[in-house]
């Protein structure tokens, strides 16, 4: 009996040791490098870090780290050092709610939260709004187009705009007429389908097939065979994790070794997606056959250079960070954090109920505001009594009354190293025209 107890104890010990390792691995946080007598501030990164959409979380964590570094190197926010912490939603609303509640309940020093994808935004945003925590969300759901959540901010367009940009690019740039829609059956991916169908049909193109594919399946050969029988000119897709890799590999295989052109949403401009799909169908096939729409970012200018320098510098904390140098979401969330920090400096307050309203002013600029591209220059300008307008890694911000900011789109390809190459541009006006034509 004693032996049995010991063995059970050993089993429990092993289990807890493994749990400790696991928790240490998945719940990691960055610590500020500087020191200050003032209490530290925290930026929560609430997103999927495990599950089918696990590739999204790291892109957002990669936004937080360089922002925290830039802020801390400038002395922190009014002397408060800043750090980042991951909160895993697994991409499931059921897991996101307790994750958000735990984050809010356990951390009274949250200055802002970034992440909140379409997978979990609908369940997370109300919690954050009620807790008065400014959030910068990556959700593309149209329900946030006219949100009443005053702490909600979105620096990217809704998914339907991505869909319209894809339609515009396919029809105008490539003259494709027959389109197969192959999207994951998750909430985020399906948000593209309705608008894309409406726009394609409204503009006289044909949707040859609309497949909502279950993510993470070992094979999609039946689905691919059905899709190939409709003879599309191009495949529109967003199916994250290994799904697009498996699906496209089978397209190439079942189409006698020839890949069809395929076009992705801005979420497919991602190093994880690139690695998965090139691993399955080869780098050259992706370079030759794949295009995507991405947020209209120039990847240049002083704001971008500052971001890039800090991103490269945090590789010691997060080795994959430099790979996100051209991930639109990473750039925009970095900008959001900077806007929140500068709003705190302008209001001289760490109380979100005070500085939240000023985030919009820092993003859009007010009359007489001086443009700043780095946190240090922003703080300096504020100290000299000036108002500031943040023009950062992602360029200009133009929040509307619902704190939604939108820019134009670019049409891009990958090069063999996974870098984004711009091959066309869709201005906001052009996108709006497609929206109107497509009945959006």
């Amino acid at each position: 009996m004693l032996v049995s107890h010991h063995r059970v104890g050993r089993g429990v010990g092993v289990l807890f040791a493994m749990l400790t390792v696991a928790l240490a691995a998945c719940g990691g946080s960055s610590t500020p490098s500087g020191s200050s007598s003032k209490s530290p501030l925290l930026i929560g990164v609430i997103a999927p870090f495990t599950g089918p959409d696990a590739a999204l979380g790291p892109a957002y964590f990669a936004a937080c780290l360089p922002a925290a570094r830039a802020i801390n190197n400038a002395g922190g926010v009014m002397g408060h050092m800043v750090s980042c912490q991951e909160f895993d939603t697994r991409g499931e609303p059921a897991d996101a709610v307790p994750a958000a509640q735990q984050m809010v309940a356990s951390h009274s020093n949250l200055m802002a939260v970034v992440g909140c994808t379409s997978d979990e935004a609908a369940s997370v945003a109300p919690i954050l709004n009620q807790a008065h925590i400014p959030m910068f969300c990556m959700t593309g759901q149209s329900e946030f187009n006219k949100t009443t959540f005053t702490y909600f901010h979105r620096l990217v367009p809704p998914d339907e705009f991505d869909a319209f940009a894809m339609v515009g690019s396919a029809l105008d740039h490539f003259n494709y007429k027959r389109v197969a829609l192959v999207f994951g059956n998750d909430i985020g991916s399906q948000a593209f389908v309705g608008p894309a169908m409406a726009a394609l049909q409204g503009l006289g193109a044909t949707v040859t097939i609309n497949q909502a594919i279950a993510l993470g399946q070992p094979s999609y050969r039946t689905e691919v065979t059905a899709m190939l029988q409709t003879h599309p000119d191009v495949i529109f897709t967003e199916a994250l994790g290994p799904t697009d890799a498996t699906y496209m590999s089978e397209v190439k295989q079942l189409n006698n070794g020839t890949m069809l052109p395929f076009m992705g949403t801005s979420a497919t401009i991602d190093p994880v997606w690139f690695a998965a799909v090139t691993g399955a169908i080869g780098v050259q096939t992706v370079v030759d056959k794949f295009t995507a729409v991405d947020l209209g970012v120039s990847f240049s200018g002083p704001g971008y250079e500052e971001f890039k320098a800090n991103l490269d510098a945090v590789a010691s904390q997060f080795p994959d960070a430099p790979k996100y140098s051209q991930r639109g979401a990473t750039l925009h969330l970095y900008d959001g954090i900077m806007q929140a920090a500068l709003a705190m400096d302008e209001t001289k307050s760490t109380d979100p109920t005070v500085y939240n309203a000023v985030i919009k002013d820092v993003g859009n600029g007010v009359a007489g505001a001086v443009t700043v591209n780095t946190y240090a220059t922003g703080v300096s300008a504020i100290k000299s009594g000036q108002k500031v307008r943040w023009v950062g890694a992602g360029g200009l911000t133009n929040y509307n009354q619902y704190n939604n900011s939108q820019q134009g789109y670019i049409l891009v390809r990958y090069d063999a190293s996974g870098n984004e190459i711009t091959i066309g541009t869709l201005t906001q006006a052009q996108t709006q025209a497609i929206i109107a034509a497509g009945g959006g």
Partner: protein
Amino acid sequence: MSLIVAAFGFGLVSMSIIAISAVGFTMQFGITNMINLAYGQVMIASAYAAYTVNNAGVSIWLALPVGAIFGAVFSFLLNRLIYAPFQRKGTNLIGMVIISLAVSLVIANVLLPIVGYYSVSYHQNPGPTYHLGSIALTGVQVAIIAVAVIVMLAIYALLRFTRLGKAMRATAANPTLARNCGIPTGRVVDLAWLITGALCGVAGTVAGMNSDSFSVASGSEFLIPIIAASILGGAGSPYGAMIGAVLIGEMTEISAAIISPEYKQVVAFAVLVLVMVLRPQGLLAKRGALAAAG
């Protein structure tokens, strides 16, 4: 019609992979009374072990045994270090299920920092494509079906014709009686974990070969059809699991052709529910090789 025939052909590959894994899963339950929900994660861990070797330049066919050995050793250690102590303590079946669920999460979260969140692909040549009417299968897929057939025959031979197989059946039927009859049930259980772990490793590696891309998150997706096939065939019955694999593998593919890919798992599980209503013990529970003798 051609799409349905093609789907049937693809179903042969799916059912082969499910069969290998489901037989291992159901044997674990039959012999050790353990519903191991960490099975899918062990599959993925084994697939990554094979990937490590394959990525170093070794043929995937030579890496396959590495996946099997990894799965065998990993499963053996899981039982010895975690499951068996709890079972000796008298933890009930539900408690053991929860523990295996915890182990599954731990494995996934330990794997993540080691292998990363990137999806990976084996370096493999799919080989020539073989056509039979509307059915088109690559050389790799044909080989996967062949592997499944060999494994199924080997399991049949093991259980039917060897002393170990008979000892496994006796242990599954009544471990106390088996022990009193001189069967070293502890060693039988160890060997059962090694053999079923090897099946798990083979299944994980061929699943990775078939899907062309996999990640840590794939483990939970693999587990669902495995459980379905095992329950459908009759929990604890290897032959039932084989039949369950055929049904689940074909139903998922054919329903994707007839109805919608979105509902392919729904259809499979609807049939599973129907069988459970009409025959709660599963299709072959009474006649399975691991069921009580007589």
